């Protein structure tokens, strides 16, 4: 019998994954892995997390059918998994509450996090406030400028925000800086990595914490439509919201899985973040995965109007799913994403994050490749309030 795809756990996903980090970090990764393995089998942990999600996160998140939006794409039905309605406004809180509980179990009083769009930084600062932990968030200087409102939110929540001024001054460099902090402070500090990238156990653990999205969706879609959706769509930067909604459906072969990555100015220009479409396998931030790099193995700078997708790497499980042919990955340009953001806002009264808008823009392609009447479940991973300055300038509203 073929092993189930959903049963795959790290350190490796095929040739991808692993732990390509300096030796000083290995003890911390071992400790985290052991703590997580014990916790996931411990009912007191899983019950506590479930209770937190019920009373604090606001789970389960609802599903909304986007009828007026779908009508723009012909004969398909579009269902939105409303992760934007979670506390802090995105899916990121699912992982953060899980890891903060683990930090407590390990007796660590300080958490550090990286953030691109600021969603993970805000979620981390929120969890730190809730659990009474110190919190430092590393954020590329470029991103602190385009996400100034989220910087203010993190500070109000009591976190220290460090603007990273090295390298390309974006998410990739924020992760480097967080890793450097972790090497130096590993005894007191948990690195609360915000996506399904990085060294084992992060890709598996972060996926597991987000897999609640897919589990809920499956039941909700069965109750709502009496069957599984024909396709699932999500945006992919590091890939956490996508793997979160994909995971429960990995072994349902009839359900197509679609990840939409940032094609920036266009997938054939030098300015994009389409790692799975244009990258080659390599090692970045501790894992083997597809990544954008030059002929010398130097990481290439990515580009996207969306800070959260502006990352030249991707989680190893996505690389594995791509090579297996189980998931499809498709590029969406800045302009297509912004059009979709506006369309969703004006047809449904839901302002999506620009990251999420990439998945919504994917409906045009899906409406062409899926059968008539197809049901598409989209992970509406975050709300767009944080993007109002970018959107305001883009659309000439401010």
């Amino acid at each position, binding site marked *: 019998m073929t092993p189930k795809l959903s049963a795959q756990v790290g350190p490796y996903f095929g040739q991808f994954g692993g*732990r390509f980090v300096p030796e000083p970090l290995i003890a911390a990764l071992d400790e985290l892995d052991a703590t997580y393995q014990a916790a996931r089998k411990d009912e007191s942990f899983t019950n506590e997390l479930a209770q937190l999600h019920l009373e604090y996160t606001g789970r389960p998140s609802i599903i909304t059918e986007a009828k007026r939006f779908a009508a723009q794409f012909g004969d398909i039905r579009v269902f939105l998994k409303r992760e934007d309605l979670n506390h802090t406004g995105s899916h990121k809180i699912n992982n953060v509450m899980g890891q903060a509980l683990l930090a407590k179990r390990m007796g660590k009083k300080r958490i550090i996090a990286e953030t691109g769009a600021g969603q993970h930084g805000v979620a981390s600062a929120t969890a730190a406030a809730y659990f009474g932990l110190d919190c430092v968030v590393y954020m590329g200087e470029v991103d602190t400028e385009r996400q100034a409102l989220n910087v203010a939110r993190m500070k109000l929540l009591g976190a220290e925000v460090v603007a990273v001024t090295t390298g390309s001054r974006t998410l990739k460099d924020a992760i480097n800086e967080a890793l450097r902090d972790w*090497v130096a402070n590993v005894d007191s500090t948990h690195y609360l990595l915000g996506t399904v990238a990085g060294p084992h156990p992060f890709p598996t653990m972060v996926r597991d914490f987000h897999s609640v999205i897919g589990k809920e969706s499956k039941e909700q879609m069965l109750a709502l439509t009496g069957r599984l959706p024909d396709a699932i769509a999500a945006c992919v930067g590091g890939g956490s919201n996508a793997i979160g909604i994909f995971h429960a459906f990995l072994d349902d072969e009839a359900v197509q899985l679609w990840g939409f990555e940032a094609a920036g100015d266009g997938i054939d220009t030098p300015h994009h973040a389409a790692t799975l479409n244009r990258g080659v396998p390599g090692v970045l931030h501790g894992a083997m995965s597809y990544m954008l790099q030059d002929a010398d193995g130097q990481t290439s700078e990515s580009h996207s109007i969306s800070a959260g997708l502006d990352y030249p790497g991707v989680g190893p499980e996505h690389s594995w799913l791509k090579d297996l042919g189980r998931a499809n990955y498709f590029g969406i340009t800045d302009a297509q994403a912004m059009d979709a953001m506006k369309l969703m806002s004006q047809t449904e009264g839901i302002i999506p994050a620009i990251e999420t808008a990439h998945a919504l823009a994917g409906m045009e392609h899906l409406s062409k490749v899926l059968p008539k009447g197809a049901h598409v479940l989209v992970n509406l991973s975050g709300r767009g309030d944080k993007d109002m300055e970018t959107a305001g300038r883009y659309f000439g509203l401010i």
Partner: protein
Amino acid sequence: MSKVETILRQNRDSGRGTLVGYFPAGYPTLDDSVAAFVAMAKNGCDILEVGVPYSDPVMDGLVIQQATEKALANGFRLSETFEVIRKVREQVDTPMLVMSYWNPVLRYGVDNFAQALEDSGAQGMITPDLIPDEGASWIDAATKRDLDHVFLVAPSSSDARVKANSAASQGFVYSVSTMGITGERANLDQLARQVVGKVKDLGTAPTCVGVGISSAEQVREVNSYADGAIVGTAFVKAYESGGLEGLTEKTRELARGLG
């Protein structure tokens, strides 16, 4: 026995101790870095560590980050690492180990990279973000050519990992002095002695201590319990502020910490 290991053992037995000097290849330009390595070799460094500039150096502090960024901005290409080694080799016999993050090696092709190391006259490589658990391809390629393969041990490493990483290393074992990235430290941790002690107890490979060493006194202290002291940031800083002369002066100063 590898050339590097032979030197470390001779210097320990003679009571001199060993100074290992790091500098980034291509910083600020290819020829400048060649001159820097030659100056370091002629003024007291027993072993040279040729750093490969990389876009995401997670183990390095700001001084080395900025230097390697500058080398890249000045157009450094990976293959120039071997050109630097060849040019230094024409002038001095000092053993050279490349220090490279893993992705450039992977992209070049692990076996091709090992061959280029051998062809250029380098003795082997230190891999800061490659643990032996993930390093089978490199260990094979290096072993085939009798190249040194130096892995790290850290104060946080379990006894089992110290043992495994030491066993997997050839040339020496790189003992990370402190929990942190490269850069100068006023006080070297007691941790350095502990981690070195663990490696020494195994009685297999020699071990050098790196991270945080910047004074002759520290070079002397480290050599009193380990087989060598590795210095990087202090050399890069000396070069930044005083050019080749400043680097030469710093090398002489640190070499005064040797017996």
